[in-house]
């Protein structure tokens, strides 16, 4: 069977292209998305771009490494970013070189605060206070399904309009599925703008009643059921909130649509991040298909944490065979100076010889690498045109700029 070889994804080319203004990193949870976004941001900054990374809920130490000790919703400069030295590349003019010396800012998304800020920016103080105190607003802004995604998009829109950075890297919220990120803002917008909410918020007018009658359900019955299961207060709070909001800025849906359009605008690129595992790559597949459907520009797929071997020419089978040869040879003789073997409580198959251990580890790694290659090939078989970059697994958790820089350096170049 012919092996599916994907086109290479050249991350450097993407970040060096000044037309790239927004990079959206998406993918399912637990694949190293936040780290990838941070590494891309750092690399772009060190290659001369003025970058802001919007991150959501990063690992504590990663946040600290980027100088983000608090969640304050404001882009902060990340200290320790190296200035790019002048690079001499064919085709680059001296003017480009003069522009070098990038910067990196990073912020953690505080969704409630972002929501509050929208309200404060658009309403007079009295009305804003009234909305912020509304119980329905409070539950909506703190934990509504989709609010985090919505606010990430909102923040992206704000930063884009501010135009202080020439590259924005977005780390999408850790959602159940990668697709939530695309759907949630619209779902929330649709809901707030929805006919049912409107039916309940306007004093029941004829229109509403007539509409309900078509379905053979009395308006009273609907409100009755909702009142029973939710309580009258909840409905009243929701009504007050929506009415207040409505006069502020003509409908949430338009806002959601605006951010959605931003994602399709030229200058936006999506990077799908996955781990070399069936579930993560299945999600990546859905996402790639969905982006195509929406006409959103996909730059490619980054497969994180790929196991590679510097000794790949030694196959798993030969490695295991060599380990067996050593074991059978009785090369288990204790190294000089060690305690006598007998009674040491070690099981017989514990290798005393480092070589045996090393060979077994290598075989395991090769098997893992083969399995990872297999799932990656399955992805490429289904999406042969999607460029792919593999990032090797790091031995240790990344928690400083050096670690992020190492990841950036390991991005393959085309």
């Amino acid at each position: 069977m012919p092996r599916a070889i994907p086109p290479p994804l050249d991350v450097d080319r993407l970040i060096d292209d000044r037309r790239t203004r927004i990079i959206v990193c998406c993918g399912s949870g637990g694949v190293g998305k936040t780290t990838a976004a941070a590494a891309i941001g750092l690399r772009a900054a060190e290659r001369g771009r003025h970058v802001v990374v919007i991150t959501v809920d990063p690992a504590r130490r990663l946040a600290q490494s980027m100088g983000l000790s608090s969640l304050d919703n404001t882009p902060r400069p990340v200290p320790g970013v190296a200035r790019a030295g002048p690079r001499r590349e064919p085709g680059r003019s001296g003017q480009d070189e003069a522009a070098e010396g990038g910067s990196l800012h990073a912020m953690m998304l505080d969704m409630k605060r972002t929501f509050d800020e929208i309200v404060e920016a658009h309403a007079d103080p009295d009305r804003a206070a009234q909305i912020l105190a509304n119980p329905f607003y409070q539950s909506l802004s703190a934990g509504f399904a989709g609010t985090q995604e919505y606010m990430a998009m909102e923040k992206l829109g704000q930063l884009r309009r501010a135009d202080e950075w020439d590259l924005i890297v977005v780390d999408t919220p850790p959602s159940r599925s990668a697709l939530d990120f695309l759907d949630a803002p619209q779902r929330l917008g649709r809901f707030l703008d929805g006919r049912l909410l409107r039916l309940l918020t306007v004093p029941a007018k004829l229109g509403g009643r007539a509409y309900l009658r078509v379905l053979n359900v009395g308006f009273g019955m609907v409100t009755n059921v909702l009142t029973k299961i939710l309580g009258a207060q909840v409905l009243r709070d929701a009504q007050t909130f929506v009415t207040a909001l409505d006069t502020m800025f003509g409908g949430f849906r338009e806002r959601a649509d605006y951010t959605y359009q931003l994602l399709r605008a030229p200058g936006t690129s999506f990077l799908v991040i996955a781990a070399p595992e069936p579930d993560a790559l299945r999600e990546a597949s859905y996402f790639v298909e969905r982006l195509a459907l929406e006409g959103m520009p996909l730059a490619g797929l980054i497969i994180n944490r790929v196991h590679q071997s510097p000794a790949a020419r030694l196959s798993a089978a030969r490695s295991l065979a060599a380990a067996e040869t050593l074991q059978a040879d009785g090369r288990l003789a204790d190294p000089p100076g060690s305690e006598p073997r007998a009674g040491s409580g070690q099981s017989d198959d514990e290798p005393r010889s480092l070589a045996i251990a090393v060979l077994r580890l290598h075989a395991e790694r090769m098997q893992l690498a083969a399995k990872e290659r297999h799932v990656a090939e399955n992805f490429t078989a289904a999406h042969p045109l999607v460029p792919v970059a593999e990032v090797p697994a790091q031995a240790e958790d990344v928690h400083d700029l050096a670690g992020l820089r190492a990841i950036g350096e390991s991005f393959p170049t085309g």
Partner: protein
Amino acid sequence: MRLHVVTGKGGTGKTTVAAALALALASGGKRVLLIEVEGRQGIAQVFDCPPLPYEERKVAVAPATATRPGGEVYALAADPEHALLEYLEMFYNLRHAGTALTKLGVVDFATTIAPGLRDVLLTGKAAEATRRREGGRHVYDAVVMDAPPTGRIGRFLNVTAEVSGLARVGPTRSHADTVQKVISSPETAVHFVTVLEEMPVQETLDGIAELAGLGDGGLQPGGIMINMVHPLVLSPGQLRTAASGSVDEGELALELKAAGLEDSRELAAALAAELVDHARTVTGERAQRRRLAAPGQPRYDLPMITGGIDLAGLYRIAAALRDQGAA
């Protein structure tokens, strides 16, 4: 223990472990219900069966062993819409109207406007199955819930507080109180699935700490399931030396040569680099393992299944859980 809530950070294998736990608990002639609540059809994928409806279905048998008879695992994909209709029928006899309400999007609306309602409907289903009796005995010996990830578990299980903004009296409230009673009971435990990496371990520790402040006097933490554990290949001394970056490449080359491998010097250098890498990973994992000891909950090591999880892999994880006394 009758209700097992299984949570964990995304990517740690929460659904797989929940399924394996259900199998382990079923062994010995028991009947266990496995419930998923996130609409992902994760259970169907794990058991390699068609998508599950809102209906309890037998999905697997726990194999009999020399000492224990087999058992049965049932599964249910719970969704708030069906759960709400069931609830309306139970309390208001509104089944027929329910269909119309679905068409209108009222159900969607209600669960959207009040996320707490959505959660109480799902936890309510698990509580109901846990309490269900027929002919004087429990229908299920145990119920396992594949719950939302650690980031959302507190809110999900804090039923009473979540619906406190809703009707203050009446059926929703009394339903929530019943559900909270089941979840807070000593017969319920919340298990955490993790791998030995910083983020999942941190979320596990945060999650266990959070449980104490939930419900009525805290929820009971259960086990910490450490998933994808690599077998130990190096002795402690070998591990220390290699992690410090020192490997005797000359010695290694000699042994490789003795094993009949060519270019042994070059190979030794490459394999030494691999060894250092491995030793650093394992050393990092050990540090994470020590952190997991702090809460004092039982810990269970689950084997790394290479080649993807299939039914056989699931049975192996179930056996590991049983052997270590988790079920």
